[in-house]
């Protein structure tokens, strides 16, 4: 089932559009990876969907609801959960408080917490620590837990593995892939580690200079012989 639909979407911060003419859809239980070189506008695209950057034209819907006029807060209520790349936890609050606060307006906070901890069991190891004192991996896990507290239908994840050690990168992406399948969430993920992302994603889009260069099944894209050279230079 298609949950999130982008129709010729343009996004910017007030000046010239940074992301141009994006059409895409994400279904439930599906992971779509956004890959592309630095500065291609990947993060801006996610921010546009979350309401942090401005959609200048085009359509954006989730389950048939028009998101364009909605504020970040209202989009969150509509089930779109955005996990920013940095400053994504409340540093002065404990992990438990971070999770509780992320389910504002709901009466079943306890149940949601249990649910999130069941999905991300490592959280239980540091629930009472202040989020500002967590390691990089713990922090990203806590931030992911926070997004899940609202029981989102669409999860927008901006570089969840940035700054993590290589073994944690795979772990984090596995966790994301698993919970997508279990909870039926549609995930749009921006990821620098393109290869690692493509092995977990269902589909991938390649963004270059703010425009969609390629869209296709992840495995197919990963299999292209000139893939690395085309989009990632040396480090792919």
């Amino acid at each position: 089932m298609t949950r999130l639909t982008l129709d010729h979407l343009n996004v910017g911060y007030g000046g010239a559009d940074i992301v141009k003419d994006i059409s895409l859809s994400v279904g439930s239980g599906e992971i779509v990876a956004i890959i592309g070189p630095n500065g291609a506008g990947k993060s801006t695209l996610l921010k546009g969907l979350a309401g942090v950057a401005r959609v200048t034209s085009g359509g954006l819907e989730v389950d048939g609801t028009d998101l364009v006029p909605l504020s970040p807060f209202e989009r969150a209520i509509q089930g779109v959960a955005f996990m920013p790349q940095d400053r994504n936890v409340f540093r002065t609050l404990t992990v438990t408080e971070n999770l509780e606060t992320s389910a504002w307006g709901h009466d079943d906070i306890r149940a949601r917490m249990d649910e999130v901890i069941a999905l991300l069991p490592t959280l239980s190891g540091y629930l009472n620590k202040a989020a500002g004192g967590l390691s990089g991996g713990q922090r990203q896990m806590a931030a992911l837990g926070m997004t899940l507290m609202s029981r989102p239908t669409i999860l927008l994840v901006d570089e969840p593995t940035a700054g993590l050690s290589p073994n944690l990168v795979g772990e984090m992406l596995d966790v994301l892939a698993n919970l997508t399948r279990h909870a039926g969430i549609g995930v749009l993920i921006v990821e620098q580690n393109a290869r690692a992302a493509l092995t977990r994603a269902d589909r991938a889009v390649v963004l270059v200079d703010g425009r969609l260069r390629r869209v296709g099944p992840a495995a197919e894209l990963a299999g292209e012989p000139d893939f690395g050279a085309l989009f990632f230079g040396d480090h792919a």
Partner: protein
Amino acid sequence: MQLILNAIASAAVLAPAAIGFTLIFTLFRYTNFAAGALMTAGAFAAWQMNDLGLPIWLGGICAVAFASGLLMLSDRVVFEPLRGRSGGTLLLVSIALSVIIDNVIRFAYGTQIRAFDLPLRPPLTYAGLRFTPETLSVIGISVVATLAVGALLAFTRLGRALRAVADNPSLSSIRGLPVPRIEAAGILLAGALFGLSGTLAGLDLAIEPNLSWALTIPVIAAAIVGGLGSPLGAALGAVIIGLAEELTVAFISAPYKGAVGFVVIALVLLLRPQGLLGRAVERK
């Protein structure tokens, strides 16, 4: 010992306002110099109600409500349209606001010094300490209020949300927190604390329009000593300022009590710019 009791009494007057100031600072990142004016407004509201025949505790409740409403109104009319402007601009505006509030009070009540209508009771003595029943109530009310606000912030949903918004407003709205509503709750709470401090100041000192600046500096000093982050720090900062004030009165000269706040701020800035408690404050 007497000195410590006096210090605690001074601290009791300052603590709620210092917490309110810290709350506003952490939510909006500006220094609100109208703190003293709001306290004075609270003191006059309480006095007015008392003068109309209401008992002092009811007058105090009116003062809390009045100052709360006044800060809310100030925010809507003055500060909200300026959100996003520099901290310096907001600071300047808060001084202008303070001048307005002070002079409205002066306009309405003149420069006469007033006091609550309290039954004259002899000072109590206990273990060699002399204190009035009013001192005891001031300390009691302040301690209860401080603990109540501390508990609110630590254990309730609203308290967590207030800390979350203070920590990171944009993440708050992304996570589905109704930020404007939570900010409004913070403003009402801070205003109430100013009103409470004002009433306590009225019990402890005299009520006059010139009170405002004499209150603003020690309140801000207490908040800075407390690290401008945690309400508990602000309360502790108030105790330190109170102690410094009483030491000044005892060993230097009573009139210079008013300079203590400035000197303490200067010392803190020299020795520990992040405040005695708490981490360095991020500044814009």
